[in-house]
């Protein structure tokens, strides 16, 4: 017993205290060093913070370089895939474009009205700062789903700023270095966002779950409304962390969700693993109360809304006219085609008749000649006693038709 304990102690001592051939520090020393690092960073020790920022700057740049070949392959694969899908995508895009063009004007009106009403209730935010940043690293770990962007405190990035990708929420800034910043993605389990479900205006908190999904927690109200379509998830603006109304994702409604048997999963609008450029923004509440300048603004908005309404009405009339003109054109084209075909048919018929007549005329002349040949042939035919015409010649024919020689 005593011997085995000694062996254990010797083995442990050898493992943790003995320096190897090329080891400059013992394992125990380095473990203590790590623990010191951990403790100081948990206590927010300033020196550790500076060290961390320095390491961050170096590692992010290095990591960007090291990930170069992999990103190159990944991008090329995506480009090739995109090329294969180009035709289909183009067709789909054209269809969507036509559909969206129609919707655009109505949306403008709704936006202007929305701004007007938000100003009325003093809940209108304006963009204070906006910076476009490139995603340096997209390193997803099991502990933290985050990305690193190439803008930092040098570019006036601040903690808590919102990160958008084409207008959709993707995360917020949680760490700012001088040249770089870390964005906590909305798919992270630690990210809690106050959201609002539309239609129905149900309030909830969304937490990250998995790569492309979020899960609703603390849903106000027992069940989601029984709507047979997708529910839109937007930021609610509660807690003033995020501006209200930023789209996040959708929830597909099925029976299990309605019966509260399953988690309410939010499918994000943006693919968070494919982020390349993001927009970092902060919003400011507009200080507009019901004073004279605001009234002026309101009037301007009213005018703008009226103008857009008029434009939409004109556009509608023009579209209606175009539709009618198109219908008439199609009708005329059809008639034209029919008449052209009819003319061709009649022309062919006349030609056939003319040919037939010509044939008849020739036949009649031949019959007339043959009949006359029977009566007057002997008067024109050449024989040993006279010197008339040979049978079959033109002179003989003329002679027969003239009823003999005159």
């Amino acid at each position, binding site marked *: 017993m005593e011997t085995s304990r000694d062996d254990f102690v010797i083995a442990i001592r050898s493992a943790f205290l003995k320096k190897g051939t090329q080891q400059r520090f013992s394992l125990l020393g380095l473990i203590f060093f790590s623990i010191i690092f951990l403790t100081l960073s*948990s206590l927010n020790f300033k020196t550790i913070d500076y060290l961390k920022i320095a390491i961050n700057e170096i*590692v992010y740049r290095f990591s960007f370089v090291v990930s170069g070949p992999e990103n190159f392959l990944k991008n090329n694969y995506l480009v090739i895939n995109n090329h294969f899908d180009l035709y289909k995508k183009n067709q789909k895009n054209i269809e969507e474009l036509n559909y969206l063009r129609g919707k655009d004007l109505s949306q403008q009106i709704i936006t202007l009205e929305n701004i007007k009403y938000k100003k009325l209730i003093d809940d209108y935010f304006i963009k204070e700062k906006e910076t476009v940043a490139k995603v340096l690293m997209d390193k997803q770990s*099991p502990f933290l789903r985050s990305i690193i962007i190439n803008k930092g405190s040098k570019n006036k990035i601040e903690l808590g700023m919102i990160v958008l990708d084409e207008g959709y929420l993707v995360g917020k800034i949680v760490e700012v270095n001088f040249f770089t910043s870390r964005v906590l993605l909305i798919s992270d389990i630690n990210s809690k966002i106050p959201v609002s479900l539309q239609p129905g205006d149900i309030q909830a908190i969304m937490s990250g779950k998995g790569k492309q999904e979020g899960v609703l927690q603390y849903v106000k109200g027992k069940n989601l409304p029984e709507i047979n379509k997708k529910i839109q998830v937007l930021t609610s603006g509660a807690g003033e962390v995020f501006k209200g109304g930023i789209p996040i994702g959708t929830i597909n409604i099925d029976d299990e969700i309605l019966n509260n048997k399953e988690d309410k999963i939010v499918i994000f609008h943006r693919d968070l693993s494919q982020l390349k450029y993001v927009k970092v923004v902060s919003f400011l509440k507009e200080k507009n109360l019901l004073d004279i300048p605001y009234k002026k603004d309101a009037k301007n908005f009213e005018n703008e809304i009226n103008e857009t309404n008029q434009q939409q009405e004109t556009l509608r009339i023009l579209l209606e006219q175009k539709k009618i003109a198109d219908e008439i054109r199609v009708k005329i084209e059809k008639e034209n085609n029919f008449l052209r075909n009819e003319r061709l048919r009649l022309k062919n018929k006349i030609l056939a008749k003319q040919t037939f007549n010509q044939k008849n005329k020739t036949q009649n002349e031949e019959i007339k000649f043959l009949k006359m040949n029977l009566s007057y042939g002997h008067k024109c035919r050449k024989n040993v006693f006279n010197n008339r015409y040979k049978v079959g010649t033109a002179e003989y024919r003329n002679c027969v038709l003239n009823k003999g020689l005159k």
Partner: protein
Amino acid sequence: MSNIYQKNIIYRIYKYIPIILLFISVLNEFDFNNLEFIYFSFNFSYILIFYYSLKKSESLGYVYIFIAGLFNDVVIGTPIGLSSLMYLILCGAAAYLRNITLRPSLIKDSIFFLITILIINSLLFIILNFIFDFKLNYPQQLINIIWTFLLYFLFANLFDFFEYYFLGRNNAG
């Protein structure tokens, strides 16, 4: 003479491959630890560190492992020093196993590896949850541990093959 010199350079490059692999696995965006699949992920760094600390302790210096851990923390966003601590504990466990083993076998190594990564991950969860208030997905971590354990067999053989054919070193174990 130049032939010997060239061979020496290539040998040196091969010798540094474990360190290069460790730093690439830590710095690269492509992470086996967080793949696209729900039921498949493993920690390549753990396998690499354990194998080389156990079999070829001179290949990976503790200082390099410590620095790789710091880099890993910065890249994945965990508190600085945490990964270093885990990596070094793993090294310590491997060194202990090396000291007590008389007749090494892959099965014994892998079972010891499983116990070590279970302890390490438990420690990691305790520190992250209770000190730094991080939330973790436990089933995912368990899957990660199981796959790391299972793939140890494959990678141990691969590393053996590499050591034998490229460096001409016989497996110590």
